């Protein structure tokens, strides 16, 4: 057996796991690993802040379907990763973080750049490791990859002491599959559970499928569409589920929940059966759980047993892989026809159409919804869109219609501002042939703006659309609706974003009229490098409809009809 240092073993393991790209930032305690890296065929992306590395790894994983890898040093390097790890945890994204740690004999002595990152990340990782011996590095990394991608995916952190990286042993790769005593991710579909679900489906006259990210993660897109068509059931989507069923599919109602369209939420409230597939009844989806879908039986299919009965009590539950479950259902379920129910839901769309902001004539004001819808049309709905968090995120979900899985990447659970730009860089690395757009607010952009330098240094081509309304828009909206328009700390003065782009050697454009959108978007698409577009949109527009937090799902604040829409903010240009 050849002799290998711990540092070499780290890279040997990563290469064996199929890793081609890592996102990281060097430092004292991870120096041995960085030194060894030069001898391995792995592309390292130097980030500007370790939070960026974790978001890039997350975006890389979500766009490409593999595992994303982020590397940092001990202490502040590791703690800077915390937001990105928590983001990946909440959205079940398979990320492996490798951190250096101070030498084992210094652990517990408050050494320079020592922090207990394995302790800190216990609640925000699927699992984590503190490795203090060189012989433990391979088992920890192998298990980390296995854990990150199997079952319900999630982030795993491996903290490796500097002395373990420096020590040598006789070593070779162990190709045997990982076996862990307390972790059995594979779960067969239980027959009695399936039969219970089938009975409920057969009885239903007003079914709605609730499709979550589990559809995408289990690769069940085709099976879900076939199942919905077989039983003629409409499908409502969670934010992270978008793309799991083509937006143009006749049974796809669109997004549900706080900013879902009115007919979607009404359909859920009036359903007699909800089939929750790979979703977790988040509070942004249910509103008040006590009045949620009061007449509906609930079937819940999830790979994670702790999601069953957590927020909403299930009448039938199947803990298994969704794709396998749908295959089993397709084997036994009969064709059904719910035309009256679907026609009834369709009849509710008329009212929403009247209120649709797309109906608003070009008044000289630039609306975010128009910009996003235009980007959708110009990119023919084929781009991978990575959004930040806030109003633009909801408008994107409403007005960019996703036809394919992994084409929307967004921080849903944690709601992490600053996610979009680094995650878009990661997404582009995973899918170099895809057109990648980061859609981001003026607030969130400034949180991780430094990663523009990463895009420039790496020569990564993404398109950045800043939806710039001069406010922390979603918070401002809440202040408008619920805090008597007292705009505490939400007006936001930003630097000249075009100059920021130019300072990085990148192209930047400003758009303040709708008539300019097409031309500038096309120029961005044609450009070789990353392009930033500063869209100066209507300042005090709001996202409609809106279910106030904790309110009944059908108690929505609706967009005023266009004739009474108050045009606020700057004078028409």
């Amino acid at each position, binding site marked *: 057996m050849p002799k290998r240092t711990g540092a070499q073993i780290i890279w040997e393991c990563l290469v064996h796991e199929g890793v081609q790209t890592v996102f990281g930032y060097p430092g004292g305690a991870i120096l041995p690993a960085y030194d060894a890296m030069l001898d391995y065929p792995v592309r390292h992306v130097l980030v500007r802040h370790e939070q960026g590395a974790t978001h890039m790894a997350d975006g890389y994983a979500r766009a490409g379907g593999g595992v994303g890898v982020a590397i940092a040093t001990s202490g502040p390097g590791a703690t800077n990763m915390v937001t990105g790890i928590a983001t990946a945890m909440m959205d079940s994204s398979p990320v492996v973080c490798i951190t250096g740690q101070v030498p084992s004999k210094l652990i517990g002595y408050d050494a320079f750049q020592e922090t207990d990152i394995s302790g800190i990340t216990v*609640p925000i990782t*699927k699992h984590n490791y503190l490795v203090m011996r060189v012989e433990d590095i391979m088992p920890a990394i192998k298990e980390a990859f296995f*854990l990150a991608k199997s079952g319900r995916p999630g982030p795993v952190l491996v903290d490796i002491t500097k002395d373990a990286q420096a020590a040598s042993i006789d070593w070779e790769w162990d190709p045997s599959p990982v076996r862990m005593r307390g*972790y059995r991710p594979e779960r067969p579909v239980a027959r009695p559970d399936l039969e219970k679900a089938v009975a409920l489906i057969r009885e239903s006259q007003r079914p709605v499928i609730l499709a979550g990210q589990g559809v995408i993660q289990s690769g069940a897109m085709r099976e879900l569409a076939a199942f919905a068509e077989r039983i003629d059931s409409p499908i409502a989507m969670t934010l992270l589920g978008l793309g799991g069923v083509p937006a143009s599919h006749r049974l796809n109602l669109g997004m549900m929940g706080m900013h879902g369209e009115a007919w979607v939420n009404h359909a859920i409230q009036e359903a007699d059966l909800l089939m929750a597939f790979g979703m977790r009844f988040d509070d942004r989806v249910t509103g008040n759980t006590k009045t949620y879908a009061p007449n509906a039986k609930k079937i819940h299919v999830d790979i994670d047993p702790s999601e069953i009965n957590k927020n909403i009590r299930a009448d039938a539950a199947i803990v298994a892989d969704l794709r396998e479950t749908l295959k089993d259902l397709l084997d036994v379920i009969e064709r059904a026809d719910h035309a009256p129910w679907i026609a009834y839901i369709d009849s509710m769309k008329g009212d929403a159409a009247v209120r649709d902001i797309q109906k608003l004539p070009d008044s000289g004001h630039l609306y975010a919804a128009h910009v996003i819808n235009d980007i959708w049309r110009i990119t023919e709905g084929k781009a991978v869109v990575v959004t930040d968090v806030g109003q633009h995120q909801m408008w994107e979900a409403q007005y960019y219609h996703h036809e394919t899985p992994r084409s929307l990447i967004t921080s849903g659970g944690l709601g992490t501002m600053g996610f979009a730009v680094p995650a878009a860089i990661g997404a582009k690395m995973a899918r170099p042939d895809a057109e990648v757009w980061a859609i981001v607010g003026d607030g969130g952009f400034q949180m991780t703006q430094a990663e523009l330098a990463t895009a420039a240094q790496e020569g990564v081509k993404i398109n950045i659309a800043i939806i710039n309304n001069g406010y922390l828009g979603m918070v401002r909206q809440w202040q408008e609706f619920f805090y008597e328009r007292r705009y505490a700390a939400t007006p936001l003065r930003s630097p000249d974003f075009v100059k920021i782009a130019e300072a990085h050697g990148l192209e930047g454009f400003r758009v303040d009229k709708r008539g300019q959108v097409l031309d500038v978007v096309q120029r961005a698409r044609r450009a070789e490098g990353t392009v930033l577009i500063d869209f100066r949109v209507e300042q005090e527009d709001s996202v409609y409809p809106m279910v106030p937090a904790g309110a009944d799902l059908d108690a929505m604040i609706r967009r005023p009809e266009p004739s009474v829409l108050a045009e606020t903010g700057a004078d028409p240009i």
Partner: protein
Amino acid sequence: MHHTLIALVEDKPGVLNRIASLFRRRNFNIESLTVGRTAERGVSRMTIVIDSDQASAERVTAYLYKLVNVLQVEDLGSVPAVARDLALVKVTVAGHDRAALLRVVDETRAHIVDTGEQTMTLEITGEPPHVDAVIGRLEPLGIIEMVRTGRVAMRRGDTALSAAKYS
């Protein structure tokens, strides 16, 4: 309502922290928690008592299973079980009737495990309510120090909880 949960866990560094962190993070209050070895190598056993309703106990069980180091969980709230608690109680013997104390010892099956010039240390073992009752009788006599192990419990009958199938 009290729920007694048994968790068989891998004997690895940090496992206790993971369990404690889970209860804290999910907003469950631990009434008592004991950890010890089992007859199986590398497997520790935790007895965790929480005050919660049945639905919450089911949630906790599911969360415990999500921890990679947790092998098996059993809720003893739903099955007949033997439970024991042990207390060491140091009682002052100065300034009152030593005979009163000895009477309590005699009537409650407590054991005298140590005597000092001014104090006597008693061991009380039994079902947790029994231990509570004995302590209640000792309080008027002057408890100056006390320690309790917290509840340990085991299902009655021939069924045994084992992690062997997870080896």
